[in-house]
Every structure is written in structure tokens, then in C-alpha cells.
């Protein structure tokens, strides 16, 4: 179907271990501040100053790790330097966050405006100090001899095992910061959902008065949330300047601190979802770098995660409205209320929205194929392909749209309406996913082409059905009960 060289290159490349590894790499500096944004947001004090905090930490890390060469012996400096830089970077992150906390919580300054001030300060102070220290306004290359955070090598024998070797190539030789970032997801999840402080934090964010009335210290919890977000943003900044590079560049975070504000919304407000949302941003950033040729506008894939976030905001808002309606229904029905059924409906509605949303990506791909056919193997192949992709995407949106516009339809129509549309759409995505995955590992296992495609499609169908059932299809099939929710 796709015989154009560049496009094929991109599609096949997406499932190469090297590309997946690069996704992890570019996700790290988005993921860390995203977790910071998540924590602060859930405590009701969203930290807008992440961008400035990251920049300051990145710069501090470079400065201290390069001065470590002068302060310590050569051998110890190599070991201590990066960690000293990390420590000081995190420290500066905490310092800036506490400045924000002081001004917002103590002096009652507007949170958003003081966050903006922090960004301005971070961006300006780093450039000014860099100019003072190095005489250069662009970057510290060549002047400050910074160090790099260590890379983690996995045991070699894993490369010998067939399927494992594919994953080995993804995770081997990643920066320690990448590991820290993904471990941080679990730590933050544990903190938020399994510790009393985390519960207090969520309570404070949801309803500060109620939290205060049961004895939770609102101010202290918010201080903590802001400081934690400073720590995470500091780590993200360190990765920017010391993860792969060894220098600081002015405004090198390039808006990642602002993306981080959006990922919690894309991820549904929990750490796992935030991690996945960061991967989405990382994926499209990696694609944009990969197709960074002049023939295809790299801006298009760069736009995708932002469009996705705006849509996620819409989904989020629609979900909130649905929650209110279900709550009204619960109070109206009292005993007869079927909580599991409504939860299933809510989850399925998210699924429909996600499926329609993903199809928008298809439309963007086809638009870029139409606009620059040369980049996709010439007019003869690109235009028909683009048309096919566009039609499939429009169909996907069209069949899912009825359930997005009116969520009750999921429950009102017979169960197989929702099942049919969502499983069909899911099958397409999952089928492509598994086919490409099998293609990627086929040379280690030895699969024929037919087997790859058939296997991929079969796996895709199984996955689609499983996912639908798991998300709530089972309740939908079992329950005949339905009552229209009362209008709010």
C-alpha cells in the first residue's frame, strides 16, 4: 500500500527499537515536569512556573557539574560532578517553587501571574548569568565543560533471548534520568493514592473548605505540592541540559514546561494517564524530528499533540458534565441505581471519544500528503493513499460521533451498536499496531509475511474485543436496565 520510500521508512521506523528508544528519550523532559504539574494541579495550586524552573535547574546543573572539575580530583569529579549538578538543579527547583509558594500562599499573589513571573525570571536570569560566566548569550558550549548523567546498561545476555532482545534494545543504554522519570510515575501514583498525605492533597484540590473542616492543613499541603512540583521540574531541567547534551542553551526547554501543564488533562488527571499522555507528546516529537526533511512540513506532526490536548480538554469537560448528570440520576433513583452500569457507560464514552480523536491524526496525515505529495513518493501514489486514509478517518469519526454527541445512546441503543463501532475502530488501530510489532520482531523470531499480517490482525481483534469487554461491555451486555438521566 505504501511504496513511497520516505513514508515507508517512517512507518517501518516507528516500530524499530531505535525509534522507540528515542521516544523514551524525548518523553523524559516532558514527563518529569508533567508529574510536577499533576501534583500541583491536584492540590489546586497549578504551578505555571515549570518552564522557568526547568531552565534554572538546567543551567544550575551545567554550572555546578562543570565547576566540579575544579573542585574535585579528576576521577572523583567524573563520578560526583553529574550528581552534584543534579542535586543543585533540584535545589534551585525547590527554591523557585518555594518562592512561588511564598508569594501565592503567604502574600496572596495571583498564582498564575506569579507563575508567569517565575518563567520570565528563569528565562532571563539564566541568560544573564550565562552571559556573565561565559560571555556568550546563546549557549555554554565550549565555555562550561559540563558533564552528562550516566547511562544505564542492561545485562548483555538479554540480547540473546528472541522477543526480549527487542525490548532490550529499547531500554538498554537509556539515561538514568529516563529511568528516574518512569519510576517517578509509580512513586507519584503511590504517593497520591496510597499515602495519607496524597489523599489529603487530592482532597485539598477538590474542595479546600471541606478538607479544612476535617482537619487537613490546607496551606501546608499546598506548600508541599508546590515544592514537589519544583523537585520534578528540576529533574526535568537537568535532563534537558545533562541527560544527552552537556551544555545549556538559552530557552532550551522550548515550551516543555507549558506542555507539562496540559498532559495531566490529556491523561485524565492521574499519574499513569499523565505518563501515557507524555508518551503521546514524545511520540509526535520524535516523529517530527524523524521526518525533519524539507519536503514534509515537520510542523504538522508537531501540532498533533497540541490539537489532541485541546480535544482532551473537551473530553474532560464532557466527562465532568456526564458525571454531574449521573450523580443527579443517582439521587433521583436512590436504591435502584445501577452504579456499575453507569461507570461502564462513562468509560465507554471515553473510548469512543479517543477513537474519534485518533482519527483526527489520520486526517492530518492525509492533509500533509495532499499538501506535499512529493514527500510521500510522488503525486501518483500519495494522492490515492491520502484519499484512502482520509476516508477511513472520516468513517471512524462518523461512526463514533453519535456516542460522543449524546452519551446516553451507549445505554439506550442495543449493546451491539456501541460494541460494533468501538471494536471495529479499535481493531483497525490494534491490527496495525500488532502487525507492525510483529514486523519489527519478525527477523529475530522468523515469521513469514502472511503470518505476520494474519497474526497481527487476529491479535488486534482479540485485543479490541478484550478491551471493549473490560472497559464495560460486559455490563452493557448484561444490563437491560435503562432510564434516561434527568436533565440538569
Amino acid at each position, binding site marked *: 500500500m505504501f511504496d513511497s520510500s520516505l513514508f515507508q521508512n517512517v512507518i517501518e521506523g516507528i516500530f524499530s527499537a531505535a525509534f522507540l528508544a528515542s521516544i523514551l528519550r524525548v518523553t523524559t523532559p516532558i514527563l518529569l515536569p508533567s508529574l510536577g504539574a499533576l501534583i500541583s494541579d491536584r492540590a*489546586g495550586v497549578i504551578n505555571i512556573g515549570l518552564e522557568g524552573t526547568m531552565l534554572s535547574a538546567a543551567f544550575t546543573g551545567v554550572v555546578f557539574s562543570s565547576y566540579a572539575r575544579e573542585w574535585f580530583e579528576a576521577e572523583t569529579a567524573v563520578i560526583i560532578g553529574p550528581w552534584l549538578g543534579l542535586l543543585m538543579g533540584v535545589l534551585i527547583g525547590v527554591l523557585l517553587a518555594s518562592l512561588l509558594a511564598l508569594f501565592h500562599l503567604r502574600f496572596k499573589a*495571583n498564582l498564575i501571574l506569579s507563575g508567569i513571573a517565575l518563567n520570565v525570571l528563569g528565562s532571563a536570569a539564566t541568560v544573564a548569568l550565562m552571559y556573565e560566566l561565559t560571555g556568550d548569550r546563546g549557549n555554554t558550549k565550549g565555555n562550561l565543560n559540563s558533564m552528562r548523567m550516566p547511562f544505564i546498561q542492561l545485562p548483555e545476555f538479554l540480547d540473546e533471548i528472541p522477543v526480549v532482545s527487542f525490548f532490550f534494545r529499547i531500554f538498554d543504554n537509556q539515561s538514568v534520568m529516563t529511568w528516574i522519570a518512569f519510576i517517578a510515575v509509580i512513586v507519584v501514583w503511590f504517593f497520591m493514592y496510597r499515602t495519607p498525605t496524597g489523599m489529603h492533597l487530592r482532597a485539598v484540590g477538590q474542595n479546600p473548605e471541606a478538607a479544612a473542616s476535617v482537619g487537613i492543613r490546607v496551606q501546608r499541603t499546598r506548600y508541599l505540592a508546590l515544592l514537589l512540583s519544583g523537585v520534578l521540574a528540576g529533574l526535568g531541567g537537568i535532563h534537558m541540559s545533562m541527560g544527552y547534551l552537556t551544555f545549556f542553551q538559552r530557552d532550551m526547554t522550548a515550551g516543555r514546561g*507549558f506542555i507539562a501543564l496540559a498532559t495531566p488533562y490529556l491523561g485524565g488527571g492521574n499519574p499513569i494517564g499523565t505518563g501515557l499522555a507524555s508518551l503521546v507528546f514524545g511520540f509526535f516529537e520524535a516523529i517530527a524530528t524523524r521526518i525533519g526533511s524539507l519536503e514534509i512540513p515537520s510542523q504538522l506532526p508537531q*501540532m498533533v499533540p497540541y*490539537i489532541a490536548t485541546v480535544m482532551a*480538554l473537551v473530553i474532560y469537560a464532557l466527562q465532568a458534565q456526564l458525571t454531574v448528570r449521573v450523580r443527579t440520576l443517582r439521587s433521583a433513583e436512590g436504591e435502584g441505581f445501577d452504579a456499575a452500569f453507569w461507570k461502564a457507560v462513562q468509560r465507554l464514552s471515553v473510548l469512543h471519544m479517543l477513537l474519534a480523536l485518533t482519527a483526527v491524526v489520520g486526517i492530518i496525515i492525509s492533509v500533509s500528503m495532499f499538501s506535499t505529495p512529493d514527500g510521500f513518493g510522488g503525486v501518483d501514489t500519495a494522492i490515492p493513499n491520502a484519499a484512502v486514509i482520509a476516508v477511513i478517518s472520516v468513517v471512524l469519526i462518523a461512526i463514533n460521533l453519535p456516542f460522543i454527541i449524546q452519551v446516553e445512546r451507549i445505554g439506550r441503543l442495543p449493546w451491539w451498536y456501541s460494541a460494533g463501532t468501538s471494536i471495529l475502530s479499535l481493531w483497525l488501530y490494534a491490527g496495525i499496531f500488532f502487525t507492525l510489532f510483529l514486523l519489527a520482531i519478525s527477523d529475530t523470531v522468523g515469521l513469514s509475511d502472511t503470518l505476520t499480517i494474519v497474526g497481527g490482525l487476529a491479535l488486534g481483534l482479540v485485543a479490541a474485543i478484550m478491551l471493549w469487554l473490560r472497559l464495560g461491555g460486559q455490563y452493557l451486555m448484561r444490563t437491560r436496565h435503562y432510564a434516561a438521566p434527568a436533565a440538569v
Partner: protein
Amino acid sequence: MKQRRGQFSRGQLALLVLGLVAGLSVVYVISHEVFGGFGSLDTQPDYQAVLFVNALVGISVLLFVLELRWDALRVVLTVIVALIIGYGVTAAFNLDAAARFQRGEFRVQLQSQAEVPDVEEMDLEYGKARGGEFNQQNAPEPLTEASYRFAGREGDTVTIIAAVTRQNIEADLEVALLDESGQVLAESQDSTAEQIEAYRPDLKSTKDAVIENFALPADGVYTIRARPEAIPRSTQISEMLSKTRLAYEAFLLGPLDGVLRWSFWVQDALTLILLGLAIAIVFRAEQFSLGAEGQLYFGALVSGVLILAFGDVPKTLLVPIALLSAATAGFLWGLLPGALKAYLGANELVSTLMLNTIATRFYEMVLTFQLQPEDAGYTASDWFSSAGILDPIVENTQVTIAVFVVIAVVIVTWLLIRRTPIGYEIRMIGANIKFANYGGVNSRRTIMLAMAISGAVAGLAGAHLGMGIHRKLILNISVALAFEGVVVALLARNNPLVVPFTGLLYAYLRTGARFMESDANVSFEVVRIIQAIIILLITAEALVTFFRRRRILRRGTVEIGTSTPPPLPGGGAGVPSDTVGSEEGAHV
């Protein structure tokens, strides 16, 4: 108490007089500085237009005083405090101002009439010179001291000159002659005017060192040691202060140094005023939309594309259409997050930040793939045709008829907020959205409209950047200008009549910082540090009461009725004192 029309209370009269005096003196000072005195006014091109714009500056000062009243004092104080802190920052950056006395290229000359002894492996010999550079900036191992060995015979008369290589190098050198055991035989730190005359052109200044006609005591190898003189602490401090003073002079007076520099200030102010108005409108409705950046990009793009496509259309038609379409583009790009916020409750901060990036990427894409001419070496569109640019009102500057556009927008925005139902609703929502809803305000429609109208103004700012200043579309046409607009709106307390003053003020600081960088070599970023401080100080509402309370606590008495009781420390178990921000941060 309501005043009857035509009657002024004593306080109002005082304010009016104060405003008039302030405004007139500002006009006088600015005009005087820009023209370098009023003596030769006629030789200045378009001096009437400059005076006209200066008069507008004066009017903005008057409005600032009349509208903000005693709050104006707080704004002025905040800016002064921020400037003082900025002075400290500048001084800190100039700690090594005296280092220039230890830095620079030098040459050491060894002169003698005597015959050169035949000794191998020497650094210098009679009639030769060696040189280098002391404390080269950013060098990994800077040279701090130079030693050269030479062979001499007993009775040879030598003259040693250590001098800088160029007149403008300020290094202060000293030189010493050492014998084989390291004993100092002769040394010199400075030279006299006669010596400079005698050894021209080798000696450059009195700071250079010379050892004249020294007779060597014995045969052997001698060492010349040249190095920069140590700088006493008092010199270091005075150097730092004088450099900081010079930098701040360039910062605070630079924009008034001639009509050209003045025009940089005014053109920047025009952009900032438009952006400040855009931000003020949304902030009035308590909507933290930062979408001005994206709306600016769309405004610039749409007007630019129109002008590039219809360059032959007469100017009287093209310019208004381009401006209107820029405003429309901004309006629509503001309508989107407005609708998302109003009807779905989507967080406007996040959505506008996302839409900003989408707009910027889209602009970049169109510019790179559609507008950029084939042979262009860098990413920019063709120049606009003359029909599509705003005419300058001052010759050879970018101070254009945009001045009148800005005046119109200021008046329209003021009328909109103060004199129309929609403006009333915007103010109601900003004051208390629950109360507004209760009073029958259609808050959804109003929020949407407020964000859209703000977008229209931001779109005009984009058109001004394209049609007035750059006269073509360039990459990065705005670098986070929307955030500068936030400062302008914030200083003006979101009052459209005050925005012109704060826009001019902030543009003045920005322009001044540029000249500080070029004239005094102090980083432009100082002004952005000042900006951050201004934002923090002006939004910290409790800072004033905080200091007042501390004073009261120190006195040990609390005057009942003059101060609110301090909240329990750390939030306590009491009801937390909430602010706008905490509600904004909560999930929608």
C-alpha cells in the same frame, strides 16, 4: 458621594493639577531630550509629528494619574523598587568591571644599542619584542604573567617597555627585571608623559610601564617579568559603581537619545499597548487566557497573506481590509477557547497555551512552505508592496499611522468596557460570577465574547508587527510578547485608559535595556528580571498588609478596625483563606 457634572471636589482638582503638571513636564523633558534642546527644531524632519506623539505621551500620563488616583502611587513605587533591585543586579553583573585593567594584548620590547650576545634558547634579544594577551576572556587557562629570558653582558644599557598593543586596551601593566637568582633589579609600574613622548609609538599610555636605560651589572641571563598591576579594592568598587551608573544611564536615558532611538521606543510601545488592551479585556472578566500570542500570529498571517496576494489594490482599500481581517482572524482564534471555556468549562489557560503553539506552528508552516520565495536565504516572505504598509508619520522611522489605530482601539475598548452592556457584564463577571449569573447575566456568552474581542485586538497587534514594523512576515515575529502584555495590563490594573501609559512605560524599559546592552555591554535580560519582580510585587496583594501587620505586631498593639486579624499559621484547622488562583487551579 456623587459629584454633579461640572463640579470638582478638592481632591479631584488636586489630582487634575498633579496629572497636568506630570504630563506637561514629561512632554517637555522627552521633547527636549529627543531634539537635544529646542534651538534647532526646524532642521529636524517631521518635528511636528514627534511633538504630536509626545503630546499623546503626556495625555497618557494625565489619564494614568486621573484614572488610578492614589493607586498610581503604588504602580510608580513598584516600578521604582523593581528598578532599584535591577540596579543591584546590574551592579552584581559588573563585579568584575575592573577586570578590564588586567586584560588585553601586550608587547614587551627590549631595546639596547649593545651587541647581541651569542647565547642559544633565549626568549628575547636586543631589538626584539614578544607579546601575548593577559587574561583573555573565556580562555581555559588565561595568561596572568609573562616571563621572558634574555642574555646580557655587563654594562649593556637596556630599555624595557611593556605596553598594550592598541590605544583602546585599558590594561594597567607593570614590568620588572630579574637576575638569575630571582632578585628584582629594577621595576616600573607607570610611565610619565615625557617617556610616552620619547618612546612613541611603542608606549601608548601612562599605564604602560618602562624601565629606562638600565645598565646590567654582570654577564648572564636576565628575566623580564611583565604582568598586569594588582587592582586595589577601592578601584574595583568604584569601577563597578561607575560602570553600573553608565549602564543605568543608557538604560534610563538611552531611548531619548535622538529621534531614531525615540522611534524604537514608540513603535515597541504601540505593539505593547495593543497587547496590553487585549490582555486587560480578558483579565477584566477574570479569565486567564494567554491566547494573545496565537491570535497575534494569526492576525499577522492573515493580513500578510492578503497583502501579498492583492498588492495592487489601492492603499486606501487594502490597509483597512488587512487590518479588519487581522482583527477578524484574532477574533475567531479567541472565540474558540472562549467557547470551550464558556460552554464546556475547559481550562482556558491550558487551551490557549495549546492554541498558541498550534497557531505558531501553522504560521511557520505557511511561511516556510507557501510564502517564502524560492531564492530566499532565510525564512521570510517577500517584502510587502507599498500599498500594504502603514505609512510612517515620522520620516525614516517605523512610527506609523498605527498611532491613530492604537488611539482608536484604546477609545473603543474603553467605551466597550465602561459604556456598553457587554462591558458591564464583563466587569460583573470579573467581580463575582455567581452574583452576575444571579443577576441575569448570560455569563457563557459574555466570557466567550470577552475572549474573542481580546483576540481581535491581539490580531491587530500582529498586523501592526507585519505591516508597520517588519513590512514582511518573518519567522518568530513575536517572542512571547503576550507575556509582556500581561505586565502592561497588570500595571494598568486592567484599565484601558491606563494601558497607554503602562505600555509606554514598559516599552521604555525594554528599549532602554537594548541600549544598555549595546552601549554599556550589560545583558538585556536585566529588564526581564525587572519585569518578573514587577509582576510579583504588583500581584502580591497581601504584601502591603503583611508589612503593615508586622509593624503593628512589633508595636505590640492592634488598632481595632484598621487591620484584619492574621490568619492562623499554615492554614490551620480554620477555614483557609482562598484566592482566585486556587479556584483556577482546580479541575474543571
